[in-house]
């Protein structure tokens, strides 16, 4: 289990980004972090990966402090501008002992990406798919995705959504932030609602539907229009 305890982050005395955020992500499930823009969703993911400093809080994976069991897919490109997809894949293989080049190859085929393509010359949709490859081809149990659907076309969204119900998901715990609830509501296992830097609500989606008869969208409206 990926556990986040008491994340706090402030800028100066007044601006508080995160106020004691705690939640957990189970393996073999998809958890969605929901919140309005600028609420700190992205910051939480980055904080978990050590990309931004926090004032307090811990992150545990199966009881240990270890970032190397979590893979991160940010919402922007991270490879040097001159690189082709092939260069990037070689890079990952060079630096990551848990890189799975077989999975990478398979996904490349499925997404119809070529190793000779220059990453920054790809369409937004292809760039997003490529970022996913970099995340999924690491043999790590937990995967964080920051806005994987942002600004891409419908067709690509479907391709990406497909991967969440494929065998590549086996045993993995996913934490993602997104606005696009509609396309993937049927895939999400758990939602966490964030507002003003705090977790204000947490539900299993199934429980929400069966017990309360509400969809995630309904619940969102309720929560954010208070």
């Amino acid at each position, binding site marked *: 289990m990926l556990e986040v305890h008491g994340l706090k982050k402030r*800028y100066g005395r007044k601006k508080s980004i995160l106020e004691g955020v705690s939640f957990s992500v189970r393996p073999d499930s998809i958890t969605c972090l929901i919140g309005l823009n600028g609420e700190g969703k992205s910051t939480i993911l980055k904080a978990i990966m050590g*990309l931004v400093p926090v004032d307090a809080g811990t992150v545990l994976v199966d009881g240990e402090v270890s970032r190397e069991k979590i893979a*991160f897919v940010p919402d*922007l490109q991270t490879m040097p*501008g001159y690189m082709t997809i092939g260069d990037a894949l070689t890079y990952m293989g*060079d*630096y990551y002992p848990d890189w799975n080049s077989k999975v990478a190859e398979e996904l490349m085929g499925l997404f119809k990406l070529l190793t000779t393509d220059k990453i920054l010359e790809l369409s937004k949709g292809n760039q997003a798919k490529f970022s996913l490859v970099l995340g999924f081809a690491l043999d790590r149990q937990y995967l964080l995705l920051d806005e994987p659907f942002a600004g891409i076309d419908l067709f690509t969204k479907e391709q990406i959504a497909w991967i969440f119900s494929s065998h590549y998901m086996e045993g993995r715990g996913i934490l993602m932030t997104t606005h696009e609830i509609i396309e993937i509501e049927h895939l999400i296992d758990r939602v966490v609602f964030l507002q003003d830097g705090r977790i204000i609500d947490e539900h299993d989606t199934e429980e929400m539907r069966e017990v309360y008869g509400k969809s995630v969208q309904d619940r969102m409206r309720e929560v954010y229009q208070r």
Partner: protein
Amino acid sequence: MKQYLMLTNEELKRSWKMIVSVILAMASIEILTIVGRVIYHERQVKEYMSYAKLSESDAIETIGELSFQQASSYFSYVIMIGIVLVILYAIQIWYRDWLGESKYIYRLLLLPGSRAKIFFAKWTSLALVIISFIGLQWVVIQLSYVIFNWLIKDDYRASSFNMSMALKQLYTMNVVDLLLIVLVSLFVVSFLFMLVLLERSYRKAKGLIFIILEVAFLLLITVGNMYVIEKLDIFLSQEISAIMVAIFVLYFVYTIWKSLRLLKWKISV
């Protein structure tokens, strides 16, 4: 270790075009100044000959022979430009990972293992560039000397190889001095790295404040130290030198330690 070397290679790979261009440009400019000086000197002699109606040897005696020392006098300007470029590289080597279409800093910070290798990869890149520049500059000096001798007419040349005062400071014919120069250069690089990492770890105003504090700290150490030594007035000159060397080493280590700490705990994408 292997990843550190690979990262260093990656840094150099990204800057390779720039590095080679600068080297070629500097070398070309320097050789051109030599050629230019020789030609200009020859023209001066010829013009004076016709103006004052003297023989070639008399004209040379009045105007004076051209020595390699004089002909290479522009080299120090080119070297200074080179130094500025290296300083800019030391800063750019970090900022380029945050700016632009892709943010490589994410990738670097997400790499498994210690973040120290990120720092040392960039540090080593600077070190290799600095040493290469110093060595290549020497080769260019020698090459220019050959070209100088080949180009200039025998009578016009003042004999023997000598360098300008500025060049002699850098090339003191002593390898120990060279090591010292490289060491001091790497200290400057480490200090710059620390300031950059400070700025990248804290937002805007806070970052600037910390930078100012660090600079103030450095000034406090150097000036304060000299003041204390003078006031106490009990140290022999060798002891003073030893104290200053020790403080330099300690501060050098401090800049690296602080940089590594910032990179590990405080850096922000």
